[in-house]
């Protein structure tokens, strides 16, 4: 618990570098264009997804279905703006698509869809599905003697779902050390604090007791994320859980740890001014 609070404090204090600010500008530009979007859940995820796509995943944007690629599933599909920003920046589709976010004919919906968005491995949005799909992908890799790895990004509110723990038991049963659950632990779900809605602590111990090798870290610390994700597998024969202490709405002082920014409709001029001060002009 002491470690948990230290990481949480570090997440709050963590300074963002220019790439993190740039990616936030992409996210917020899409929200401005669409007049809607899950802002808080995307901003807590940016560094996690950034490190995955910049440094960890073996992927080729020009061959998004390459059989040898690493698989990544955004199980908390409502954080899709962060994923879209990274996929666009990495060249899976043009950056201009972000301006059409949630438009009638856009490929980019309010939750990511397989077959619509290059680089998206599974349609998510209904919570508690991604880890089970990830178990299937990871088991398939083992059965076929393939060495791709499977990463599943989960929200903290999402792991209220019992299906997540069914999947966790299964992952441990099969000894899937090619499977990584990454938990975006921003401690705030739609209604309010996770501690109030459905307490998760002791979260690291829960994952350990389900048979996972666990790391906890500040989920906005790019270096710490790189170090942890480069160590995969954390333990031979065991799936990994990386608990990332994050701040919902990270990078926007008005939005940080503020449940009102879970989903945002039209941004006001005042809010847009505050965003420019925080992340730069966009």
């Amino acid at each position, binding site marked *: 618990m002491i470690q948990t609070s230290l990481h949480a404090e570090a997440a709050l204090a963590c300074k963002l570098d220019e790439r993190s600010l740039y990616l936030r500008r992409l996210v917020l530009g899409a929200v401005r264009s669409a007049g809607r979007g899950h802002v808080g859940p995307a901003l807590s995820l940016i560094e996690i997804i950034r490190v995955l796509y910049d440094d960890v995943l073996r992927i080729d944007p020009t061959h998004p279905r390459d059989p040898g690629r690493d698989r990544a599933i955004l199980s908390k599909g409502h954080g899709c703006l962060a994923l879209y920003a990274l996929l666009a920046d990495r060249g899976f589709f043009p950056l201009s698509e972000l301006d059409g976010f949630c438009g009638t004919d856009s490929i980019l919906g309010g939750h990511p869809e397989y077959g619509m968005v290059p680089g998206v491995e599974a349609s998510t949005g209904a919570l508690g599905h991604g880890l089970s799909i990830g178990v299937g992908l990871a088991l*398939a890799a083992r059965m076929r003697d393939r060495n791709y790895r499977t990463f599943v990004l989960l929200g903290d509110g999402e792991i209220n779902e019992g299906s997540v723990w069914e999947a966790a038991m*299964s992952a441990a049963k099969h000894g899937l050390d090619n499977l990584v659950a990454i938990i975006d632990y921003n401690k705030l779900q739609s209604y309010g604090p996770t501690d109030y809605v459905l307490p998760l602590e002791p979260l690291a111990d829960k994952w350990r007791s389900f048979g996972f090798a666990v790391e906890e870290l500040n989920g906005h610390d790019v270096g710490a994320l790189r170090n942890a994700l480069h160590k995969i597998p954390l333990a031979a024969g065991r799936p990994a859980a990386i608990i990332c202490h994050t701040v919902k709405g990270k990078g926007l002082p008005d939005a940080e740890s503020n449940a009102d920014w879970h989903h945002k409709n039209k941004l006001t001029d005042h809010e847009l001014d505050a965003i420019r001060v925080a992340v730069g002009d966009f």
Partner: protein
Amino acid sequence: MRNTAMNMVHKLAARDERVLYIGSDPGAGTLRAMSREFPRRHLIEGISEAHIIGMSAGLAMEGFVPYVNTIATFLTRRCYEQVAVDLCLHNLPVRLIANGGGLVYAPLGPTHQAIEDIAIMRALPNMTVVCPADADEAARLMEQTLDWPGPIYIRLAKGGDAVVSRAEHGFQIGRAIVMRQPGDVLMVTTGIMLQRALAAADLLAAQGIRAGILHMHTVKPLDIETLLQAIRGTRLVVTLEEHVPSGGLGSAVAEALIDKLGHGLPAMLRLSLPDRFMHNYGSQDSLLKMHGLAPNAIAAAIERAASLPVAPSPPLHST
């Protein structure tokens, strides 16, 4: 029928390395021979249906063809969102083998009686719904499942059902089978109502009523073409199903006829279970009998309906 379908999974697995058996917590020894021959492709995953469906989706994304097997109610009610999102939205070739469709588990009560499964599975885009009538037909169906695109819900009956399907009719998913040539009446059946319909047709013949039978083993996609051919010249179309009245075979047939025929609809009689949970136990047969789905009750209901004067279609007025 269940043993036949299970053994077919083993046979298909021997032929095709994509085939997996995934059970939740089936009876001891289920597919033991397969578990010995192909231990890596015989997976027992625990009482975690929501997870099993998601895991099967992941395996299917990587090219496997998982055959997921548990009791029908658990495979439909418990994990409906996973079936809808993980299987149907992604249109993945996962086969759901549902033990105990309808009232097979009558003595175990309403938690185990799958009385609305056809409706809720049929409502999902991309889902195929098949209800074989007997073990031989189940075997012919299973042969077709290897390369069928998208998910399939297979509603199995108990086992020991009289074999009435015939090899010479062949089997194609989505192609209804004319079991008796249409006469004054056409009965449309699915699953084990075929046996009851055949017996009822004999009873009706003794009364001078010629009753044809169209076996609609595949409820979705519905074979509308064969249905439209079969109703020609009949005075009454009767649907028979071991299912609540909403959303099942009767609904599917009525919807198709409305869509295709508009105002020129034939008279219809839908025979089904009532719109309520069963609070009786006994056996599949005793509950079917209780709800008017035994052959003599079916024949009597048809006789009553067939003797009613058929109201002429109202004239159409243009305004």
